[in-house]
């Protein structure tokens, strides 16, 4: 009797603990698909029609509609303020799970850290649906440039001149931090309307180089017009640029923390966010749908032709945000310095 009693209580305890361990995750996994039937999801793009952010939104639209049955995804381009208008708008939208948006993660992290008064959002409070893509950033110089390595840049008899789109833009901070880490003095030519104009100026020989994401530069690099000097990363993870040294290799472990910081901030790229207050049951639907969309053969086919993808789940994206904010806060004095 005792033994069987014991067995039963053991069984009960086991079941209970099993239930207890399962319960929270079961709750977290709860998905309110029913809510989405016949609803319209607004997909906010803080940049103009035809740009990179817009391309992802339009590429994802049919798949999201497919994986959240009964919904229609409407893309809303809310341009302005270098992406601030759309991000603010997204933040202030109702947290009912019917609004999502693709944002310039690194740029918005930098704005928040520097306390830009126009940044009316708090990334910590937003819901993170996932990440579409994160790129490796590189320094590219014209193929005809006498500079072949970072050492050449260091040994240069004159100041290195770099093209930039605007003070406070992503490429501006990136250039400042990378050159600071390398200890190479440089001069900026600022004011190009966009990356294409900056690239053309470098090709005309007006500047020595330009720093941006590899995808932005990939075309001219593949055309043989430019080459990569180094990549801003901790390891040579990106299969497209295996031959280019990383900033960490060049600078050494001393500046490791700084480079980790830079790469953490810039790894938080192109995330998809929801406004604060979306219930877990709905956020889970969005997360599942985005993840499934990004694995869909159709989307993978699209990504091979139009824009690369590097998917990350919502939970991971949230972790990445914490890392980026922490790393960014450490870099704050440097970033503030660069704006002086």
């Amino acid at each position, binding site marked *: 009797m005792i033994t069987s009693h014991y067995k039963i209580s053991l069984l009960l305890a086991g079941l209970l603990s099993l239930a207890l361990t399962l319960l929270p995750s079961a709750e977290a996994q709860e998905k309110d698909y029913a809510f989405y039937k016949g609803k319209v999801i607004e997909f906010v793009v803080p940049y103009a029609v035809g740009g990179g952010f817009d391309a992802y939104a339009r590429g994802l639209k049919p798949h999201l509609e497919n994986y959240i049955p009964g919904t229609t995804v409407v893309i809303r381009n809310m341009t302005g303020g270098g992406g601030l208008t759309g991000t603010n708008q997204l933040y202030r939208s109702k947290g009912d799970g019917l609004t999502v948006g693709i944002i310039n993660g690194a740029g918005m992290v930098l704005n928040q850290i520097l306390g830009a008064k126009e940044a009316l959002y708090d990334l910590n409070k937003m819901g993170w649906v996932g990440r579409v893509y994160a790129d490796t950033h590189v320094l590219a110089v014209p193929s005809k440039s006498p500079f072949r390595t970072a050492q050449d840049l260091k040994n240069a008899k004159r100041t290195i001149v770099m093209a930039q789109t605007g*003070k406070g833009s992503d490429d501006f901070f990136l250039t400042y931090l990378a050159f600071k880490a390398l200890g190479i003095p440089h001069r900026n030519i600022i*004011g190009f309307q966009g990356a294409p*104009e900056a690239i053309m*100026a470098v090709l005309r020989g007006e500047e020595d180089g330009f720093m941006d994401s590899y995808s932005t530069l990939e075309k001219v690099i593949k055309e043989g017009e430019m080459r990569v000097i180094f990549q801003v990363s901790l390891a040579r993870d990106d299969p497209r640029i295996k031959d280019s040294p990383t900033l960490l290799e060049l600078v050494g472990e001393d500046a490791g923390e700084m480079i980790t910081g830079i790469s953490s901030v810039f790894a938080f790229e192109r995330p998809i966010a929801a406004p604060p207050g979306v219930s877990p049951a709905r956020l889970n639907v969005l997360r599942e749908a985005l993840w499934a969309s990004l694995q869909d053969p159709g989307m993978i086919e699209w990504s091979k032709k139009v824009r690369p993808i590097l998917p990350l789940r919502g939970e991971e994206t949230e972790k990445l945000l914490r890392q980026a904010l922490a790393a960014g806060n450490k870099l704050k004095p440097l970033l503030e310095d660069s704006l002086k």
Partner: protein
Amino acid sequence: MLDAALQGLLMAAEPGVLLYVAFGTVLGLIFGVIPGLNGPIALALLTPLTYKMDAASAMAFLLATYGAVSYGGSVSAILIGVPGTGENVATCFDGYEMTKKGEAGRALAASATASGLGAIVGVVVLIALLPVLRGIVLSFGPPEVLMISLWGLTAIAALGGSIQRGLISGGIGLLLATVGFEPVSGTLRYALGTIYLYDGINLTAALIGLFAVTESISLVAKGGTIQRPDIRAIGSVLEGVKDVFRHWFLFVRCSIIGLIVGIMPGVGGAVGNIIAYSHALQTTKGNYGTGDVRGVIAPESSVNSKEGGDLIPTIAFGVPGAASMAILLNAFYLHGLNPGKELLTTKLSYTFLMAFTLLVGNILSSLFGLSFARLLSKIALVRASVLAPLILVFSFLGSYGVNGRIGDVAVTFLFGLLGLWLKKYDYVRAAVVIGLVLGEIIERSYHLSIQTFGWSFLLRPLTLILLAFTILTLLYPVIWGKEKEGEA
């Protein structure tokens, strides 16, 4: 090369491809007519339609749409004084006045012919320059952009009744252009504490206000119809076609201006037609601003030749020459084409395909325009009490619809009031627009030139040539008394 040309021609002549060209043309015209919708938006929205098409059809469809949008834009510029796209800003300066005078048909025909032939010039020059494309693209830097924009700016002095009024109006435009982030330091100017103004005044919203709103309100105030009631004619369509040939030299010059502006980096679509208009104004004697057909021919000949120019950096370096080009590039990748040097080598036939479709598309849209000119121009005879509210509704819808920002609606409204005020006191709205469009590009390219070269940028050969043009343009009326134009 001939081989590739023939191959390209064969691809373009495929019935399926031709059908897509026609389809694209019609869609492009519709996008163009509606104020606020423009080429980049048309391309972005239509790209998904090409998913199932083969590469040649997709390319032809999108390029034809792209080419037709600007012609569609000139239709609304001429008939109701509302530039449908930024590329037709200057067309409404004289085109709308022609409509008022009862010459809508003639204006529409002139615009169709000039833009159709302009496309031919653009394409022919593009093909002729294929071997030397790279050198040409690399010779235009910020100093050249600065000089050509300054050249365009000189027009503000010549517009309108008096030099003073022209200069004041142009100055208002230049001042308005300074709103928002300063391009180099990122300092905010006159943003009035609202994020909306960070990117400056939205050109489309401002244009809709300055022209559509102002004109509909004055139309209601005046009553009657757009066209003067004593005139029932719409002008001869044939006359409009002939006009272009009558002013063939002006047409060629303006086509070349369009082409050069297209090649230049970072110069938006609104700039080319304004510089062409300004060039016409400065070098020929006429009654510009009061319905001179040359005021339609000049900007329209530049609009489509510019597209040939836009293709050049894309083909030579794989770097998009304009916003629309960036979207086109995306669509091309989607169809396995990799625009860039291979368009000069292994895929040369596709370059010809692109050239031929632009050509066919533009000729088609011109033919559409010509055949409907008579019908379309009847709009000018609709009573103000019916037409004006319709125009107003579409204006505000267009202004709001593009970006979905209420700020754009406010800009449209305020610029409508500004337009009324300017009109009442005989200031020149055209000059305001010229200042507004060129202000940003002048400031940006000036700073880039100084940062890159210091003042020695003035000694660059091409810069010197353009500077000489500007000075000559300014002195021309003084020295030659504007009589030796030989074109009127």
